C-alpha cells in the first residue's frame, strides 16, 4: 500500500507536473512520421499508402549491421538514437533528485527503503509506457490526418525504403507486435539500469553511459549490446540472422528483475546521507 502511495506521489511530481514532456514526445513522433511520409517521393519511388505499422517501424528502424567501407562512413541513426535518449532523459532526474531531497525523509518515516525503490522502478516503467503510448497516439493522429491504414501490417516497400539489409530479408508478412513488445520491455530495462547507475555515479554520467551503450549498439551487432534489440533493421522479424525479440524479452525481464531485487538489496546498503556510496 505504501509503495502505491509512493508511486502516486512520483506520478504527481514527476509525470503530471512535467506534462510538457508529453508535447515534446508528440512533436517528435509527428516529425518522424512527416519524414517518412516525404521519403518515397524524395527517393524517387512511387508513393504508397503508409500504415501505423510502417510509421512504427520507421521510428524504431535503427540501422542495418555496419560493415566498414571507406566510401560509406558510419552514420548513426539520429531518429532512433534521439527517440531512446529522450526517454532515458525523462527518467533520469527524478529518482536521484528525490533521493537527494524529500525522498530521504519519506524513506526514514516509512522505515522501509525497498518500498521506495520498488516505487521508483514502477515509476520508470510507467513513464516508459506513457512515452510509447504518446508516440503511438501521435502516429495515429498522423495516420488519421493522411488517411493511412490503422493496422500494424508493414508494407513490402518499407525495408528497401529504410535501407534494411534486403539480401537477408525474411519473407513478408512481418509480424511486428512481438518486436514492439520486446522493444518496450528492453527500454524499461535500460532505463532501470540507468537509474541504478545514476544513484552511484550521478545523473549526467549515467546518461553518458546510456549514450555510449546505444552508440556502440549501432556500431556493433552484438547480443550483449542491448540497443541491438531496439532496432527493427536488426530484428529477426525482418532479417535472417537477426536478433530474436523473444531473446530480447527474456534478457530484459531478467534485467528488470535484477535491478528490482539486486538493485533493491544494494540500495538498502547504500549510504544515502553521503552522496551514494555502498555501506
Amino acid at each position, binding site marked *: 500500500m505504501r509503495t502505491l502511495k509512493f508511486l502516486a506521489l512520483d506520478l504527481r511530481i514527476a509525470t503530471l507536473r512535467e506534462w510538457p514532456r508529453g508535447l515534446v514526445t508528440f512533436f517528435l513522433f509527428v516529425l518522424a512520421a512527416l519524414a517518412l511520409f516525404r521519403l518515397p517521393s524524395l527517393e524517387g519511388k512511387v508513393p504508397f499508402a503508409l500504415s501505423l505499422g510502417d510509421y512504427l517501424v520507421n521510428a524504431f528502424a535503427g540501422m542495418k549491421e555496419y560493415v566498414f567501407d571507406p566510401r560509406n562512413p558510419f552514420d*548513426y541513426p539520429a531518429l532512433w538514437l534521439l527517440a531512446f535518449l529522450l526517454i532515458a532523459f525523462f527518467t533520469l532526474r527524478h529518482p536521484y533528485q528525490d533521493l537527494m531531497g524529500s525522498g530521504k525523509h519519506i524513506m526514514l518515516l516509512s522505515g522501509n527503503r525497498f518500498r521506495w525503490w520498488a516505487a521508483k522502478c514502477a515509476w520508470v516503467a510507467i513513464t516508459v509506457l506513457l512515452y510509447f503510448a504518446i508516440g503511438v497516439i501521435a502516429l495515429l493522429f498522423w495516420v488519421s490526418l493522411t488517411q493511412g491504414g490503422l493496422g500494424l501490417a508493414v508494407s513490402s516497400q518499407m525495408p528497401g525504403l529504410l535501407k534494411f539489409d534486403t539480401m537477408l530479408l525474411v519473407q513478408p508478412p512481418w509480424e511486428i507486435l512481438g518486436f514492439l513488445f520486446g522493444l518496450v520491455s528492453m527500454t524499461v530495462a535500460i532505463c532501470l539500469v540507468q537509474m541504478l547507475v545514476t544513484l552511484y555515479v550521478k545523473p549526467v554520467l549515467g546518461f553518458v553511459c546510456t*549514450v555510449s551503450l546505444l*552508440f556502440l549498439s549501432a556500431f556493433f551487432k552484438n547480443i550483449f549490446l542491448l540497443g541491438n534489440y531496439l532496432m527493427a533493421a536488426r530484428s529477426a522479424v525482418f532479417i535472417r540472422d537477426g536478433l530474436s525479440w523473444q531473446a530480447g524479452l527474456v534478457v530484459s525481464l531478467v534485467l528488470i528483475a535484477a535491478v528490482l531485487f539486486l538493485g533493491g538489496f544494494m540500495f538498502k546498503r547504500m549510504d544515502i546521507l553521503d552522496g551514494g556510496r555502498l555501506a
Partner: protein
Amino acid sequence: MRNMIKTELGKATRNFWFLVALLVGCALALTSAINNVNVFEETLIGAAYLGEHKWWDMSSSSVFKYWIVTDFIQPATFLFFLLLPLLAVLPYAWSYGVEKKSGYALNVLARTSRKSYLFAKFLAVFISGGLVITIPIVLNFVFLACIMPARLPDIYGIIFFGINERSLFSSFFYTNPLVYCLLFIGLNFFFAGLWAMFTSALSFYLKNRVVVTIAPFLFLLFVKFLHDNVLLGILRTEITPFAFLRGTGTNYSADIAIVSLILLFLLGFTLVLAWQNRKKDIL
C-alpha cells in the same frame, strides 16, 4: 577583475567534473589511437608486399591519416565526437546556475561588480570547455606521432584520406598538414568553449543542472535528425558539430561560412542573454 578571473579559472580547472570529462575524453582518444596503431601496423605488412610492385602510396601511412580528427574507422572516434557537446559542458558550464541557487553568487556580488563576475565566469567556462576537448585531441596526435611518421599527404592518396576539395581546410591538408591540424584544434577549442558558454547562459533561465547539461545535447541530436531525415537533400552541408568538427568520415562536407555562422550565433546568443540579465535581481 584579475583576481576574479584567477579564482574562476582555478575553480573551473581544478574540480571533479573537469577531471571526469578529461578522463573520458582522453580514454576515448587513446582507444582510438591504440586501435589505429594496430591498423597502421597491418597496413605496413601490406605495404611491404605491395611496395615491391611499386604500387603503394606511402604518404597514406602517416600520422595525419590516423589522427582522431581525420580518422573515419574507429568507433571510439565517432563516440568522442558524439559525446563532445556533453563533455564540453561537464567541467563548469553548470556553475552559474548552481552558485545562484546556493547563494554563493550573492556573496561574490556583494564584493565585486556583476560585470566582472560574469566576465570571469564565462571566460572560465569557455577555457575549461575548450581544454577538455582539445587536450584529448592533442594527446591523440602526440601518441600517434610517437609511433607513425608524419609524411606529407599526397593528393594521389585521396581515396585513403577521404579529404577532397570540398572538405574543410583541405588545401592545407595536402600542403601544410600541421597548419591543418592547428586549424582543426582551434576550431574544436572554439566550438567547445562557445558551446559551454551558450549552455551556461541557459542557466539564466533553466534552474536544473542536469537539464542545463543534457537538454542542449538532445537539441543537437534533434538538429541532426532534422538534417538527416526531414531536410533530406535540401541542405547539402554539415550543420552539427558531430560532423563539422571532423576532417572527414561524414556524409557531406562542412562549409566554413555555415560553421562561422554557428559559432557567431553561439557567441551572440550568450552575449545577449548576459546583457539581458546584467541587472536582473538574483535574490
